């Protein structure tokens, strides 16, 4: 999928996904160019996590396609290397240390010279002192930081973040926020699922609500503060009954 400016970094085209008779996603479509970021807002159970798992390639859509850099995610395995995903679970092996986990993922992504990159990522997320700690013994906040390290170790062009600040202390959240700013400034594309309008206003260029399995039109966030995004979010709740 391309536009006049070239290939979209990530695109969803009429994505449907359900579990049994439930339909979490009903024809979700959007496109993001390199450097763009989208916040998906919605209340608990609205399908935000399902959408991100589909975009990450963990759930196959019942209908529709996910394209990463123009390649079909489910037909082109190497397209997965362009994605980094932080979900509700850290996706780390509890019996391995943080560094061992990162070494494993570096090998799985075929990263050349992984040691230097692992040092870089550990320094970025202030994990250096915990690199030799078995991940099963980490606190919630450190586990979340390690999960972010796992998601970015292979330098993905697209980050899919599902409530990435959950469990982080203010300092760690600030560091992660600064890294995400730098990631976007460097041309990275980001999809952020959250139910905090302030996070959306802080990190994304546009926001959409996910309700009843469908995405609303985008709200451009440039120049809007958290209160304005919150008002837009609540307005949707009042109009549709389900934000």
């Amino acid at each position, binding site marked *: 999928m391309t536009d006049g400016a070239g290939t979209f970094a990530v695109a969803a085209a009429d994505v449907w996904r359900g579990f049994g008779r439930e339909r979490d996603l009903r024809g979700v479509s959007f496109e993001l160019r390199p450097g763009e970021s989208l916040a998906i807002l919605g209340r608990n159970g609205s399908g935000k996590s399902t959408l991100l798992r589909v975009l*990450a*390639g*963990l*759930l*196959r859509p019942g209908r529709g396609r996910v394209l990463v850099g123009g390649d079909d995610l489910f037909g082109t*395995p*190497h*397209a*997965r*290397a362009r*994605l980094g*995903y932080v*979900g*509700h*679970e*850290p*996706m*780390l*092996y*509890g*019996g*391995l240390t943080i560094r*061992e986990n990162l*070494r*494993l*993922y570096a*090998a*799985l*992504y*075929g990263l050349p010279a992984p040691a230097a990159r692992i040092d870089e990522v550990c320094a970025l997320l202030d994990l250096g002192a915990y690199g030799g700690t*078995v*991940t*099963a013994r980490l606190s919630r906040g450190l586990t979340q930081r390690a999960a972010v390290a*796992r998601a970015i170790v292979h330098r993905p062009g697209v980050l899919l973040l599902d409530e990435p600040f959950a469990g982080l202390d203010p300092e760690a959240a600030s560091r992660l926020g600064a890294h995400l700013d730098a990631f976007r400034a460097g041309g990275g594309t980001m999809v952020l699922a959250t139910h905090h309008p302030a996070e959306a206003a802080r990190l994304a260029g546009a926001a959409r609500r996910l309700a009843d399995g469908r995405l609303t039109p985008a709200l451009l966030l440039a120049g809007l503060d958290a209160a304005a995004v919150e008002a837009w979010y609540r307005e949707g709740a009042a109009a549709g009954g389900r934000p």
Partner: protein
Amino acid sequence: MRAAAALVWKDVIAELRTRELVTAMSMIAFLALAVQGLAVGSAPAPAVAAAILWITVVFAATLGLARAQALEHERGAFSGVLLTPVGRGTVFLAKTAANLLLTITVMAVIVVVETVLVSAAVGGHLAVLALPLALGGLGFSATGTLLGAMAGTTRLRELLLPILLVPVVLPAIIVSLTGVTAALGGAPFGAMWGPIRFLAAFDVIVLVLGVWLFEYVVDE
């Protein structure tokens, strides 16, 4: 190849650190051998010694494979592997290799303990019975890896694997049992070609099916 080696390496490192699986499997094996040894008395017939060997392997290895599969799903770790561009067939082969290492380790423990507690003939014929035992172990591990991934997507995970695994792998166990019985009875190596050929064919079929089907099993 680097990805497959990394996947095997992480299982080896984690097990060396915790010794969780080998210790639990060895304890189960020891207890099962002690009970069976008391039941059959000293110097049992070759067929009985072979049956004790495989019954113990099935108990201990099934427990180990089920727990190894459960560990993959803790903290969503296996989903992390599925995020990467590594082919699902490669993941299957690497996981089978790691499970085979585990099974072979527990088989070695069982052979030693059975030699001491039940029948000295088991250790005495080790060179001859090693091949049918190892080929049976490969079929067992490969089938366990495939069915374990299937069971891993359900709520019953650790309970479901033994129920699925034993019936599917039974032909390989029966044929391996024939080979091990012949070895314990003093048959020459050449007499075991039939069982060995069957086991090799079973292993190849399971490995090919696993590489082909693993993608459909793990993709949601």
